[in-house]
């Protein structure tokens, strides 16, 4: 009986792979892999140059410990469980070990491969630190630490109280960081002893809080989150129906909707404003603007290409922000209310364009300023002005393109 549960998980994993294959093809056709490879090659070349001339006093162990801890503590689990399993699999909870074993094995393998890949990249830098243990000798220790972290993460998933789970995760992160630091800087035997003591402490603490026998709800939520993450990624390249995602309140931006005039013509304007602000469309736009502003500011301050590199970076991010804001047009396309509200359809399209343009403007201003100000302070006024003007010019251009696209989609 247990074997069919293992087969069920395998079947679900296979079905998932089949379902995403067309989206992987769309992603491959988009040119994204080429850009990613180019970026990776550029980063690798920069890293090689850095390895040849590592500044004295560079915190090699600290960087390594931070990197490895991030990878070791992260313990994703693809269970492929769905809420319907509360009806169909819950009665077989006592047999679920077999199902979970396959999920854990797959999670451990992918996590270990990633950890070892990063360790391989880090090893040349580690070699220059004068550490007492060789990079190869630490590989088994890292693999054991990975397994211990996966086991710890599973116990945390079982915890009934969110606070206890968070505290245990924090403790696990701190202990892993300390253990990795010890492995990177101390003699192997002593470091292993410390790591074993840390693992024992963590295991003992994990036993204290109340735990579920099998954390169904947490696994359902985790699986749904993972699916949404994949969806979000693939949706950048293709039209993908979305699973419902939890809205974020974001009061610092949602207040704007309260100032929209109470009028029939503004119905969709209010709906799309709140949709953009509270869904991941807005979340991603905020992250994109923050990363773009930082990249623009750093590049602008570096003075590369006589200050024009900063402008270039800000334009690229402003362009991406425009595309991201424009995805609001996909929201509510299939809502039944669109056909039931006594409102003209073109009002919906106009509202989507207005909201996208406003959000794009709100992102373009800080992007242009972040890249332009450091250049202006350096006395490079032309690239400074160009950064801001270029970002702002992209707003009406993107809005025009979006309007055309929506008209075309409506005609289709």
């Amino acid at each position: 009986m247990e074997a069919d549960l293992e087969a069920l998980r395998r079947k679900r994993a296979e079905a998932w792979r089949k379902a995403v294959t067309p989206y992987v093809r769309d992603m491959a056709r988009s040119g994204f892999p080429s850009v990613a490879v180019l970026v990776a090659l550029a980063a690798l070349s920069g890293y090689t140059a850095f390895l040849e001339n590592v500044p004295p006093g560079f915190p090699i162990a600290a960087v390594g410990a931070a990197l490895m801890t991030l990878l070791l503590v992260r313990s994703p689990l693809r269970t492929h469980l769905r809420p319907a399993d509360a009806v169909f699999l819950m009665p077989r909870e006592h047999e679920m070990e077999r199902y979970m074993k396959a999920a854990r094995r797959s999670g451990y393998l992918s996590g270990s491969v990633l950890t070892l890949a990063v360790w391989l990249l880090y090893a040349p830098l580690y070699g220059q630190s004068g550490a007492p243990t060789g990079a190869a000798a630490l590989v088994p220790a890292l693999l054991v630490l990975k397994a211990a972290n996966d086991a710890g993460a599973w116990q945390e998933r079982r915890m009934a109280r969110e606070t206890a789970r968070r505290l245990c995760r924090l403790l696990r992160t701190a202990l892993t960081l300390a253990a990795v630091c010890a492995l990177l800087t101390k003699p192997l035997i002593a470091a292993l002893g410390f790591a074993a003591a840390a693992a024992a402490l963590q295991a003992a603490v994990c036993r204290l809080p109340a735990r579920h026998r099998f954390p169904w709800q947490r696994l359902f939520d985790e699986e749904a989150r993972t699916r949404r993450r994949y969806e979000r990624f693939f949706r950048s390249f293709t039209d993908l129906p979305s699973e419902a995602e939890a809205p974020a309140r974001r009061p610092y931006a949602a207040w704007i909707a309260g100032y929209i005039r109470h009028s029939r013509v503004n119905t969709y304007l209010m709906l799309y404003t709140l949709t953009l602000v509270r869904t991941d469309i807005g979340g991603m736009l905020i992250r994109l603007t923050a990363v773009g502003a930082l990249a623009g500011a750093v590049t602008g301050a570096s003075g590369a290409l006589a200050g024009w590199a900063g402008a270039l970076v800000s334009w690229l991010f402003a362009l991406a922000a425009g595309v991201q804001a424009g995805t609001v047009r996909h929201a509510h396309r299939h809502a039944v209310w669109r056909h039931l509200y006594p409102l003209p359809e073109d009002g919906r399209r106009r509202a989507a364009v207005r909201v996208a343009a406003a959000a794009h403007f709100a992102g373009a201003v800080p992007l242009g300023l972040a890249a332009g100000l450091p250049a202006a302070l350096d006395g490079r006024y032309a690239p400074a002005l160009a950064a801001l003007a270029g970002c702002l010019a992209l707003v009406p251009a993107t809005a025009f393109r979006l309007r055309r696209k929506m008209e075309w989609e409506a005609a289709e």
Partner: protein
Amino acid sequence: MEPLVEVKELSGGYSPRRPVLHGLTFTVAPGEIVGLIGLNGAGKSTTIRHLLGLMEPFEGTVRIGGVTLEEDAERYRRSFAYVPETPLLFDELTVQEHLRLTAMAYDIDESTYVERAERLLDEFRMADKRSAFAAHLSKGMKQKVMIMNALLAAPPLYIIDEPFLGLDPLAMRSLLERLNEEKRSGSAILMSSHILSTLEAYCDRYLLLHDGRLLASGTLETLREMAGMPGASLERLFFRFIAPERNAYGS
């Protein structure tokens, strides 16, 4: 009195080769509550979808407020509010924002909206949930939001599909009281439900659908006469019409 809903010889469904509805003809007048009853798959939801204008009739016409959807889409849509069987809400909007959105869509001025929204939030005991996201509400609460939205619009016609699913007894009572109030003020209500005892207590007329055909229609007294069962309850009449050979509930 001019009927608010006028359905003539309506045949429709998903495929013209296999229509679900066969020549339905009925009316709903202002100031009456009409119960749409039938077994699962009888065609109740398909009838409602045709009334909403979500499906094209293969034959026949549907008029609401004196117009077809093609003649005047805006007037047609403005004439009714719909409460679906499964709550259809925007996850990222709060309860209050849903009410505001409906008020804006149905062109209800701000002061009327505020007054009606407060009354509804109070009546349906949702005042403390006004800032909750729809995504975080229980099924019954979501259904309450749908009902509150329909009542806020105060249209001439309510189309209500299985309104009692998930509702607590107090909310059911609030809904039925409000529907009676709306009826007294001249609105028409077309309500589909399987809770026959409730329909019997509140409806003026019934449309009994079976296999996409109107098997019987009229007041309770008319149905009793048709069935030859004086004093019978709606439930007994229902079984008599739907499965006369079983006669499970006696005559």
